[in-house]
């Protein structure tokens, strides 16, 4: 009883800004002080239900499925399923359909901040090869998302990495060999150092 009362007080306090009181600084308006309580709503999800949705692949390779595909096979698939939007050479139709393929020598200094015409292709920019696999599997092709087999996703990933000169065009990828790949510009990404205050960063 006492606990329930406390919860309602905290929730009410958290909502005080909507009651015409002056809002307090943002650091004190979060919900972190609401005490934990079990409401018994919802039900335990089954492992099948989780597996049906949990298709994500992490940068450490977690979630990569079995299967494999060659860059050569991926080249065929790309022309069949991707080229109508991204162009036969992966040149894209920006902004809706981004350029995927291309290693611009100007990208070597990673000078995207001074040249907004420099394309953020997979080879020029993307820090993780697992992102290619994950996104193609979950979202592509745009008109038939989720229609590719895992072998096809490996093949397309291999083709996209090969055509971006990250791996040889003779390569075949599976979960182990995909994790041997290192993207050219992986180390260019840094955490956000903005914190408010006087400095413009």
């Amino acid at each position: 009883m006492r606990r329930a009362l406390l919860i309602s007080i905290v929730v009410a306090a958290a909502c005080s800004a909507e009651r015409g009181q002056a809002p307090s600084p943002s650091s004190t308006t979060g919900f972190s002080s609401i005490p934990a309580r079990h409401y018994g709503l919802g039900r335990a999800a089954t492992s099948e239900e989780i597996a049906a949705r949990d298709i994500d692949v992490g940068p450490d390779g977690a979630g990569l499925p079995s299967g494999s595909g060659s860059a050569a096979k991926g080249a065929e698939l790309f022309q069949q399923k991707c080229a109508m939007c991204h162009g036969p050479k992966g040149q894209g139709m920006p902004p809706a359909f981004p350029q995927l393929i291309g290693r611009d020598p100007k990208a070597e200094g990673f000078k995207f901040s001074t040249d907004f015409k420099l394309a953020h292709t997979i080879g020029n920019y993307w820090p993780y090869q697992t992102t290619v696999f994950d996104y193609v599997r979950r979202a592509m092709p745009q008109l038939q998302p989720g229609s590719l087999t895992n072998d096809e996703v490996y093949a397309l990933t291999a083709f996209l990495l090969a055509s971006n000169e990250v791996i040889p065009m003779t390569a075949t990828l599976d979960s182990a060999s995909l994790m041997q790949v290192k993207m050219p510009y992986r180390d260019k990404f840094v955490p956000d150092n903005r914190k408010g205050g006087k400095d413009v960063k």
Partner: protein
Amino acid sequence: MTDRTTDRITDRTTDLPPEPQKADDALSRRDLIAGAAGAIGVAVAAGLPLVAGGQGAKAPAPAAPAIPPDPTKLPGKPTTQVGSRSTFVSPSRAPYGETVGNSRAPLQDLTGTITPADLHFERHHAGIPQIDPAKHTLLIHGLVATPLMLTVDEIKRFPQVTRTHFIECSGNGREAYREPKPEMTAQKVAGLVSNTEWTGVPLKILLDEAGAKKDASWFLAEGGDACIMTRSIPMEKAFDDAMIVWAQNGEPIRPEQGFPLRLLLPGWEGNVSVKWLRRIELGTRPWMTRWETSKYTDPLPDGTARQFSFDMDAKSIITSPSFPRTLTKGWWPVSGLAWTGRGNITRVEVSTDNGRAWHDAELSPTTGVKAPVRFTYMWEWDGKEAVLLSRATDETGYVQPTRKALINVRGIGTDFHFNQIVGWKVAADGKVTFHGET
């Protein structure tokens, strides 16, 4: 107010209302024709563009305006099930793109701080999914004691909170930053921001229900659209002010805003407030999804790119007067919106001489933290050329920078987070155009 009307009437000329169905509609039809002709005349005289923001905006067909010469001399219209705007008022978003697209809020047509839900900006990457709320569920799994499956109705039974927060796309203002042009409207310059009242459950409460484990440091939020949008979020935000919302301005969230469930991460770039939310997974590192690697990263002049740059820094824009208005000499309210993802706006200054002198503007009472204020500065225009600017300061002491200062630290090619000072040039003939080179 009157200019708002004439701005929007122009849209009707491209999309005339249907023919009346009955003979007794003849009067309204006659008035309609006269009204439409009048609208065209106004548009031509004012030299207004037929398309708002030059983005292919098209207003929905308005009802026939049956305006009697003297409304006090006959009874008015009956009550209706759903209200509608005056036939003289038809603000419209500026849609761009089809499956992958956005539509900007008509900032120049809005007053106060709340955005009507049907004018809240949109951004989506694989179209707007049509979802049956009775079949929609939210899965919470990963580093939790009990993986939970929750229906929408069950989520609505947890403690509810209602808060007002802005959402801003972190690409908002890119064109005005990179290539400012005089004929840009406020909608074009900054229409990817909106502010509404949201109702939902603190994410913290749902995480307690599932039993979040202490070693979880990041969570993945996943939407139920056709690209199954995913973003990685630090757990600190989950236990701070994150919410899972289902209502907006008192009604269920609209489909383009995430019906039936949306993650809301106040003050952070809009992309992370994942719409059509269907899954939350707790883990120990970010997933490096497409949206936090190839997009939504900020290239910097030192040859790096900033990643997970969530916070939206302080920003403001004068929404009135703005292009394509024409001013006459005399008093004008210089009015606009200011907001910060870091808490509250503490000060907005207005300059009428291109930044030489700054004057404190009046601020409306705030509707909450991470919600915009409306600022107003009364200005008497003397008929000479002027440049109107606004500059916001937030509670951390951060002052909105000039475009030059931002380019200096980020470069012209940086891709997101454009919060530079912008303004409007008033020519000696009263014509107002965008002034982006600050």
